Every structure is written in C-alpha cells, then in structure tokens.
C-alpha cells in the first residue's frame, strides 16, 4: 500500500459558487487505478464527489476525465503512472474539456459529444437491393474499418481537441472517426454524399490541424486523426472540390513539391484559394485573400523577412534530383492499388511467430561441459 494525494476539481452549479480544488489522501497499491482512488475518497472522506463510472475495465467509456491535464479513462490509468506525470507530486483530476460541466468530474456528453456523433449520420445507408440474407463483403474492407469500430465513445479525444477549443462548431475527432466507419464500409450506398457533406461543412474534415492530441488521448488506439486523413484522401480521390479550400490546398501542395522538389510557399496560399495552377493566384478568391493579408505582406517585405525575389522565384532541387523525385511521384501515382500500411494491425515484431525453443539435441556434446 502507498499513499497518494488526489487534487480534484469540484463544481456544483446549484451552490452558486465558483469551481474550486480540494485534496484527498488515499491509501492504495500503486497499480490500482485513479478511479479506485477517487471512489475511495468518495467512500471514506467526501460522499458528495461526483464522477460517472460503470465497468471499471476500460470498456464502457464512462469515466473519461483529465488527469494531470491530459484526457483519458480514470479506470485505465494506474496511480503510480499518474504520479509520475504529475507536476508537484499530487495527481490532478479535472473534468474533460470542450464540454460543459454538470457537476465535479461529470461533463455533459449529450450537449457536445453525442450531438456531433448524430451529425455524421452514424448508421448504415444500405445499398439496394438489400440481400435476402447477409451482405457478403471482402475481409480486407472490414478490417479497414475495424480501427474506428474500437471506439467506446468516452469523449477523451473531444476533450483534448485543440481545433474545437477555438471552434466549438468543429465536428471533431470522435464523430469524424465514426464517419469513416461508414464512408469506408463497402455496404454503404452514400460514400460520396457523406464525404461531400463533411468536406463542404466549414467546420468539417478540413478543420483538423493535425495536432495529434486525439491520437494521444484515445485509450483504444482509434487514432481519430488518422481516420480524418483517410476521409480527406477519399474525398480527394472522389474529386470533391470543397469550398473550404481543403482539397485544393492538398493538391496545390503536392503539385508544387512535384514541380520543385521543395515547397514554394509563396505560391501555396494563392493556389490553395484560387486553384491548383500558375493562374490560380489571379482568381478572385486569391485576390481577396491577398488584399486581406496586405498588412502582413507589407510588413514582411519592409522588415526584409521575405525578399521579393524569393517570393517570385521558387527554390528548386537540382535537375537530376528533381527528375528522381518526379519519377517517384509518377511511379506511386500510377500504381493500381497504393500500399497503405496501417500499424493498428501490428508491426513485424508483433506479428512474428514465436520461434520454437531450440531442441536439446542440437547442443553439441562437450559444449555444455566447457561452459561450466
């Protein structure tokens, strides 16, 4: 047994008081969970502590909280690990972020998380005609959506999403991962409509900043950000030219790197807005953006940050190297089926068969004696 101190964020809206912190000492074995610590404090010192929990085995997704500033399941975090990540030797537990607090550690999942899940039509829109018995689908295509199906709806990714922090309307990681579950399902009839809907939404799939917070928060390895990138890849292959410049930005980036080997930043912005060609910068949306950014451009030029020559003349790889790079672009783009490795299904090491124990007979006679 060991003593741990928990610092809990408390809030009771009915009291009219502001949120506050209080500390509780608990006595438990270090491998016990933070949830068990909270429940001990609740049982022994303060019965009014509010926390939602059920299975205590990381499968029901009820006990999502922030531990030392990072979202996760209280039942899935050992006390000793939580102590190691604490700033001052006290384990800090607070309600998840990006959602309103109902009481203490309980947040309103309906107001944010479930609303966003509903937003993405989280059910199968089946292909017609519906077969008399089951749909037969290839194994690989179901394996492809398995990762998103591992989600237990705990809301940890929603809590830590940095894009949602500044744009509460962002559909968010959990719902977008759920969207891929159907956009990637071969039985679903409306892939294109789903992708178009999420691409055209100003707070949709292109609102993600690649900050990896959701990957880090997820206790189940769903890696929501990776699913968002797959949605974008699919939308691109479907030729969806969204109004948020999402796909144009991607195409402009890829084209510019293919043309020069290095990124020509000065061209990226106008092309993302105006269209993926040299003429893109003369399109009206690019012009409007230019006007909006004029104060920045003027200052950058005056301060000597951006030399007009650098902005106009792209840096490029030397010709032989550029040719090599372009050959790789063409080669991969012309492949019938790109090789998309997903580490969710393990590495060579994970998937290696356990080598059989060397048989006793193989030991050369005498070697045993000499080693002794």
């Amino acid at each position, binding site marked *: 047994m060991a003593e741990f101190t928990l610092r809990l964020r408390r809030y009771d809206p009915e009291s009219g008081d502001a949120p506050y912190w209080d500390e509780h000492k608990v006595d438990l074995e270090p491998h016990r969970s933070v949830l068990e610590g909270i429940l001990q404090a609740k049982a022994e010192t303060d019965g009014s502590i509010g926390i939602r929990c059920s299975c205590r085995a990381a499968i029901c997704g009820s006990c999502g909280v922030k531990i030392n500033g990072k979202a996760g399941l209280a039942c899935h975090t050992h006390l000793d690990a939580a102590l190691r990540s604490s700033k001052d030797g006290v384990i800090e537990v607070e309600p998840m972020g990006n959602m309103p607090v109902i009481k203490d550690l309980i947040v309103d999942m309906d107001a944010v998380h479930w609303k966003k899940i509903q937003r993405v039509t989280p059910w199968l829109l089946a292909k017609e005609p519906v077969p008399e018995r089951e749909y037969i689908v290839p194994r690989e295509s179901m394996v492809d959506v398995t990762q998103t199906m591992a989600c237990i709806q705990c809301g940890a990714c929603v809590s830590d999403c*940095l*894009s949602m*922090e*500044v*744009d509460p309307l*962002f559909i968010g990681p959990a719902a977008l991962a759920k969207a891929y579950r159907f956009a990637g399902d071969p039985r679903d009839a409306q892939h294109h409509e789903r992708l178009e809907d999420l691409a055209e939404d*100003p*707070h949709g799939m*292109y*609102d*993600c*900043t*690649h*900050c*990896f*917070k959701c*990957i*880090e928060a997820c206790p189940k390895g769903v890696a929501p950000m990776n699913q968002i*990138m797959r949605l974008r*890849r699919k939308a*691109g292959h479907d030729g969806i030219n969204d109004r*948020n*410049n999402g796909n144009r930005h*991607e*195409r402009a*980036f*890829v084209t510019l*790197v293919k043309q020069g*080997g*290095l*990124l*020509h*930043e000065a061209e990226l*912005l106008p092309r*993302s*807005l105006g269209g993926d060609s040299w003429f893109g910068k003369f399109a009206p949306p690019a012009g409007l953006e230019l006007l909006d950014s004029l*104060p920045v451009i003027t*200052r950058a030029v005056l*301060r*000597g*940050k*951006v030399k007009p020559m*650098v902005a106009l003349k792209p*840096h490029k*790889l030397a010709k032989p190297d550029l040719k090599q*790079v372009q*050959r*790789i*672009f063409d*080669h*991969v*783009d012309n492949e019938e089926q*790109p*090789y*998309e*490795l997903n*580490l969710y299904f393990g*590495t*060579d*090491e994970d998937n290696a068969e356990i080598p059989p124990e060397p048989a006793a007979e193989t030991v050369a006679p005498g070697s045993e004696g000499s080693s002794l």
Partner: protein
Amino acid sequence: MKVAYWPGCVSRGFTPELHGSMAKVAPLLDIDLVPLDRACCSGAGVIAEHSQELADTLNARTFALAQKEIANGADLMMNICSTCQGAQSECQQRLDASADYRAHVNETLAPEGLAYEAGIANKNFLWVLVEEIGLDKLTSLVRRPLTDLRVGPFYGCYIVRPTDRLDISHEQPRDTYLGLVIEALGGTVVDYAGSHKCCGFPIITMNKAASLTQAGRHMGDAKDAEADCVVTPCPLCHLNLDLQQPLAERQVGRTLDMPVLHLPQLVGLALGLSPKELGLQRHVVKPTAVIDWTTSVVGSVGGVAGGKVAAASGASGGSGGGW
C-alpha cells in the same frame, strides 16, 4: 560531431533567418553540417494526406541519402523543423515496422541505386542539443547568459505528439527539452497554457479565423505570463506566430507584440552572437525586448564572469535603448 543536415523548405524560403542562424551557431557547438541538398520536402503531413505511400517513398529517399553520409562518417541525421521531424518520424515508423513494406518502397528507389535500411537516427536540433551535446557542455559554452530573459517555450505539435512514435517517455522527456535548454542558457522558463498547443498554421487556408485565434490566444497567454519572447523549433509555427501576428492581433482583438525566436537564434544569443548576425531584424514582430536585453548591462558585458557579476548585482534586462 558531424551530421547529415536536413534544413527543410521553409527555413530556406520564408524563414531564411532560421537556416542562417543554424549555420552561424553550428561551428560554435562544434557541429559539422553536411547538407542534404539532394533531398526533397518531407510533405509536412499533406503529401501523406494525398498518398501515404508517396510520402513514405519520398522520405525513404531522404533517409537513404542521409545513410550515405552516415556511412561516410556522419553521426546521425539532423533537422531544424518540428514538422519535418514529425512527418519524417511518421514515415520512418511505418518503414521500420514492416520488412515487406520496406522492400516495396526500396524497389521504387532502386533505379537510382538508393535503398533505406531500417533504423536511421533522425533528430531535431533540440534533441541533438540535449542528447548529443549535453546541457552541461551547452552551459559551459555560454558567453552571454540569458539572465533575466523570460522565455516561453513553443514546441509545435509534430515534435511532442504522438509520444510513442517520438520516443517520449519519463526516461526521455523530449517534451520538456525546450525548458531545459532555456535554463541551461541561463534564461527563465515561462510556464503558460499554450506551450504544447497547436499554432493553427495547417488550417490557415481552410479556416482562417480558427487558425489565427489559436496563434493569437497562445501569444496572448505568453504575454499574460509576462514572457519577453517565445522560442520555437518549428518554422511553420513561426509563420503563424510571427509573420501572421498582425492578423492574429486583429482576430483576437488585442495587442500582442510577442517576439518569436527560432531555437538556433536563442542559442546563438547566449553563445555571444549579435542579434543582427542571427537575423532577428528580419522578423515581422520587432524583438525589441530581446534586443534591449542584449544591449543592457547584463548583455553587453559579454564574458561569462562579467555576466554573472552583473546578474548578481541585480541588473535587469529590458531597459536598454531603442533599436
């Protein structure tokens, strides 16, 4: 030490002062830079968005070029861009995980006689400072300690997450290295909410308001915590935090005036280089507080002994003349 050096694109385009300051600082740290000028853009996660295999193959080519330099005596591959670190680590994780996949990618590289062998060491300058050079050595090289300079770290997402891919652990706390370096250089680390958050740059063309709100809020938090400047190992963060700061100010409705330094610039200042040599005059936000500090009593004395005496006598930075 000798490194196969990958500067990235932005450090030679819109933030030339980053590449320039690295070149100035390297000899002082006894780092021999062998530039990988045949390598191409890491893709910054955007090429992977288009095609994962394309991004992996392009970076495998970069790694193969670096491995040639390593065979010729370089110790490892070094980058100066958080985003390159993250994008390249992501590709490396996949390439290293499967021999089958590696063979497939190497087949694409074969016509030019290149091949990637699993397990390259590719480290950002920040990691090189702490893990290869060492904080004690770094402190011993300081000629103008950053006494009384309050510096807020700003990491950039790609160099702190996901922790398993970047080998960040309790034993190897790479997500605290900026603070350790600031301290080793004699500065004061400012703790503020935004240090490990996203600068917003990746969505500047998709959702400008959200992007600038992120930049504006983090710089505002640093200002509220009374930072003189922030320092970042990521040139893309620098674009949103410095170049776009006037627009971020407009977005969040407050004056920020927060100078943003590249990591090699901060190191260079402490090693005795002048702000001009490090290209500080090229930033959009005038680093007045930092310049004032270099011209203050503490800064102008130069030698270690002098700096320490001045610091002990309680001279404070930020009081020098205009610049």
